[in-house]
């Protein structure tokens, strides 16, 4: 009995130590990536290619999801607001929800599962098939050549995707509220314009999406680089990327929101 309790306690201890160790290793990796980012900017074509892979190829899922989220917001918002006779405010509701929260958060969650998982799998497989060590043997630093461009490509793509998500979402809200239900278009747009503040709402939303972009890309790249070079290792790392980045996005969102929207 005592032995069993001791063993489970030991197990917990081991997990905690392992977690802290990985956190340290991950932070070091993040720092090294930043320090060796010169190549990503000197050879812009490498970074642009990654913007295409992470950003442009994620466009379809972002646009379709944004449209539907906006349409659902329009429907639900109208349902509730009309009870209080202020159905014209649906434009404000849609825009504020999207720009402040749903745009950055949902776009980041989609980005993590679409682009983040792909990055982890690609780097993990490059490692498993010795491409990373072959590169090192050819005197080319894999952190500068492979990790750096993907890191910056992800960071640049993320806010753009979030902005596109919000814009398409607002259009979806417009489709439902104005075109389908018949809310007055003038009221829809003008209320939105007067309620959405550039500094407090849009800039804060962009800041959020940049932070999420850094978190998701850093986690995805670290998991790939740290993956055991086996099929099982790569699949485990891909799963961890999606789970860890989703939790990181939601946790960071709460912290950022708490700082940004106090008393606004």
């Amino acid at each position, binding site marked *: 009995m005592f032995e069993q309790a001791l063993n489970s306690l030991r197990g917990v201890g081991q997990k905690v130590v392992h977690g802290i160790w990985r956190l340290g290793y991950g932070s070091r990796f993040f720092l090294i990536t930043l320090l060796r980012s010169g190549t990503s900017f000197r050879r812009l074509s490498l970074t642009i290619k990654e913007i295409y892979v992470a950003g442009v190829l994620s466009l379809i899922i972002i646009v379709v999801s944004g449209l539907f989220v906006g349409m659902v917001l329009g429907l639900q918002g109208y349902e509730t607001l009309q009870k209080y006779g202020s159905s014209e405010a649906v434009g404000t509701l849609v825009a504020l929800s999207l720009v402040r929260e749903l745009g950055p958060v949902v776009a980041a969650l989609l980005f993590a599962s679409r682009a983040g998982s792909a990055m982890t799998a690609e780097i993990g497989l490059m490692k498993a*098939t010795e*491409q990373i060590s072959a590169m090192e043997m050819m*005197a080319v*630093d894999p952190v500068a050549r492979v990790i750096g461009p993907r890191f910056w490509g992800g960071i640049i793509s993320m806010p753009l995707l979030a902005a596109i998500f919000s814009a398409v979402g607002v259009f979806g809200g417009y489709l439902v509220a104005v075109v389908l239900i018949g809310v007055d278009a003038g009221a829809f747009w003008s209320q939105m314009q007067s309620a959405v503040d550039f500094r407090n709402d849009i800039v804060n939303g962009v800041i959020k999406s940049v932070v999420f972009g850094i978190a998701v890309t850093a986690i995805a790249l670290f998991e790939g680089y740290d993956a055991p070079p086996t099929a099982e290792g790569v699949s485990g790392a891909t799963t961890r990327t999606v789970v860890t980045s989703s939790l990181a996005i939601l946790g960071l969102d709460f912290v950022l929101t708490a700082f940004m929207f106090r008393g606004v």
Partner: protein
Amino acid sequence: MENLVEIKDVSFSYGFRPVLKSINMTVPRGKVVSIMGLSGCGKTTLLRLIAGALRPRRGEVRVNGRLVNRMRRRDLYAMRRKMGMLYQFGALFTDMSALENVAFQFREHTDLPEDMVRDLAMMKLNAVGLRGAHDMMPAELSGGMARRVALARAIALDPMLIMYDEPFTGLDPIAMGVIGNLLRRLNDTLGATSIVVTHDVQETLKLVDYVYFMADGAIVAQGTPDEIRKSKAPFVHQFVWGETDGPLPFHMPGAPYAADLGMKAAHV
């Protein structure tokens, strides 16, 4: 300097597990030297030590007279430009065509104009007989062809030292012969020095100048191919002629057989 690679009293361990125990080895310039041994005996680790990817716990690794295990990253990278390595399964970059793979080092390390890079890469591909496959992607190449493209990539910068990590694994006899011939021919025409890590005894003995045998992280025998073929040492004999039983037992040590089957005899 007569020897390109000198390894003196090198020991290495992964964590607490010793992998190499007091290894001494020399690789003379211009020669093809093979390191043979069973899987997991430390051969690949030795290659990684020579390339400076790992650092020994004790001892010295010298390449071209310079101490590799004390080098800083920048010097190490400068040295690696003069080295080529062929990986077990080629390790070609899967998102680049054969030509792009070979051109990789020219693009990374030189400022040559685009058409010259292409010509140089084509010449390297021609040397391995695969100029015709220049626009194929690695996924479209057969195992043997991928290995040849990887060889063209390894010799791109005309290295002084070419290392081969299990170059014959998984190849059909014809492809094996092709890689073997290329290995010898490239070594001699480039004036390079080669180290071949392998366990394909018969194929290797035909083309190398000297052989080191490793077992359990130590060198147990060495000699020219003729000496090795004639060797009476039990381990070498078992390895060269592929015998099931010998100094290396067929059974891995374990609990008594009867005990594993849960029979009473185990308690006697």
